[in-house]
């Protein structure tokens, strides 16, 4: 079986956090306890969206030690492939769904003396569980810098400010407030680690600022869930199983492989974990690589593709599946 172990759950609560974000709470259908997890972990939510199977990762935001239920927050993405639209429009309390066991690709460095979190928009969610983990273990030396578009779109900003007035700063784009990055990067104690989750531009800005200021690479952590890019449809030949498949516009290559009944490995479905790495046997055309896993040289070689996020545009593509 490819991917993380599954859990059957029931939706027990759907709450509108603001005009873009909804929060979903899941309990196990068998009444048992959820697995413990570590702050920063995500779960992959399976959806059957009018016949199209979707598997989207969402950060767990509840306390890692609360095993009664899991909660996630989902931002509606009107342009994306529709997993978030499905959750927003179709998922109601009482529904049964399947989610994966927790997976963590963004965990705390437990050696750190201090943690500085940078969140942009919905990128706040992994930090919610990390902050709960740190404050429960009471080695909670952290700062959170949270950039939001407007006060009303700042999910959970009020709660955070109320609980951790000395640790949390919120910055409003509409009031031209900016994270004072240079100042924050200065004079931090040795053993401080930086974590960023948010839009790509923000991640790059913070990481390059930190690198310029001489921060060591192992103290920098980031998570960017790439929503798989919708693109043009294309055909692929699977050499091992002898199948030819059609990848639809609103479908990832991995999803099309699975829909053809081929059990392909995967984990993160976000181009980060490396699990779905697939050998290219032949190709005539251009690869659209969207992953974080392969090196630039591997991208250029045309010998490998990460089907969870990457696509192809051209005459023919033959994969080792």
């Amino acid at each position: 079986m490819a991917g993380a172990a599954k859990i059957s759950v029931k939706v027990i609560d759907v709450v509108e956090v603001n005009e873009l974000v909804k929060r979903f709470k899941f309990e196990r259908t068998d009444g048992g306890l959820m697995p413990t997890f570590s702050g920063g972990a995500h779960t992959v939510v399976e959806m059957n969206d009018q016949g199209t199977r979707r598997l989207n990762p969402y950060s767990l935001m509840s306390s890692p030690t609360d095993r009664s239920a899991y909660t996630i927050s989902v931002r509606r993405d009107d342009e994306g492939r529709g997993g978030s639209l499905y959750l927003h429009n179709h998922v109601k309390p009482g529904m049964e769904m399947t989610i994966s066991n927790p997976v963590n690709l963004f965990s705390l460095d437990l050696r750190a003396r201090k943690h500085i979190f940078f969140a942009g928009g919905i990128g706040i969610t992994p930090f919610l569980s990390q902050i709960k983990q740190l404050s429960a273990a009471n080695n909670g030396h952290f700062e959170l810098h949270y950039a939001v578009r407007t006060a009303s779109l700042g999910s959970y900003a009020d709660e955070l400010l109320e609980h951790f007035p000395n640790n949390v700063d919120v910055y409003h784009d509409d009031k031209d407030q900016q994270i004072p990055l240079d100042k924050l990067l200065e004079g931090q104690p040795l053993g401080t680690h930086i974590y960023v989750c948010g839009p790509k531009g923000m991640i790059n800005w913070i990481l390059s600022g930190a690198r310029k200021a001489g921060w060591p690479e192992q103290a920098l952590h980031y998570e960017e869930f790439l929503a798989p890019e919708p693109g043009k449809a294309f055909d692929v030949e699977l050499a091992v199983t002898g199948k030819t498949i059609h990848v639809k516009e609103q479908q990832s290559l991995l999803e099309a492989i699975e829909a053809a009944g081929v059990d392909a490995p995967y984990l993160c479905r976000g181009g980060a974990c490396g699990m779905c790495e697939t050998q290219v046997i032949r190709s005539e055309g251009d690869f659209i690589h969207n992953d974080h896993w392969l090196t630039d040289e591997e991208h250029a070689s045309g010998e490998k593709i990460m089907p969870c996020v990457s696509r192809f545009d051209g005459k023919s593509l033959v994969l080792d599946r």
Partner: protein
Amino acid sequence: MGIEFNKETYRGDYTFTNSPTAIKRFPFPFDKDSYMYAVNMEPHTPVREGSVYYNSFDVDEHYVSEMADRAMVLDEDPLRCQSLPHMELAGWDLLELIMAAKAKDYPDLFKLTCDGDKWHWVNKPLGIDETFTFMDASTLPYGPMEYITRQTQGDFCLLDQREENLWMDAGMITTQADWSLDFDIGMNFFEWHAPVPLAHEKGIFIRALKFLLNIQQGAPARRLNWTMTVNPLLDTSPENYHKWGIQKTTLTPENVGSKQYLRVELQSFFRLPRSNGMVFPIRCYLIKLEDLVTYPKWARRFHRVIRDLPVELATYKGFIDNRPMILDYLAQFDDGAETSPGVWPED
């Protein structure tokens, strides 16, 4: 279930023995007539009731004596158990994992009752009845990793995961095949594997690490490794090489069947939930050649594997000098007949 625990020693008079049941369930590691390093990992899911692959943490007839041997090793050398400060959380993860698994798999031997963070643990074979506060190390006689691994067969490496690598930042290592925790502590996956021949060139470690980094909660994996040991010694550490290394020279054609042991490690990999670290249990099973050859399939196959093993591997595993003598002994059980696929003795 009713396991009867042997009273036996792994040193001095070496009274260690395997019962017929233990021989039959021995984890023979060769599924074909030759051996080479490979990325030989599979899901750690139950296979064949009664086999060593059936429970998360196998408990067998050697349990009580093996724990007594561990206690002796630790008395002489406390550095066999080490944990860097950031690994305590992983230690609690491990304690919970083992207690929950053993209580579920062996309800007649172990019992765990949790009332919030007030935990009550009963280990009948070792006569332990402990009440403690989960996540409060001051309520246990040892740190959480040491506490539970003094009660669990096999060595344990606790690995921290960061920078796309695994780091050996804690462990309980008293039954190892000639490597040292005190030397390896703080090293990463490639550093501690540096002495292994051939496998690096084959890209085995790069792929194995990618696989390990992706191991998920609730989906453990396992693999087997093996070597050869003269006398049923659990502690073949570099620290004590002066004690056991010379025993290799005591092998004679007359005693090779009873003194030469095949040593198999059942290694497993579990993701730890709170720390996002990983535990790597290395469970050691020993069988003397005399017992191994009681199954004709194993006897034939083992002869062929040892005969054709590359020199580099026989050297690394430390039996190159004794290989001719071992082969002379094994050859008498190999009539050249075909062996059936798979590891099971009677299939």
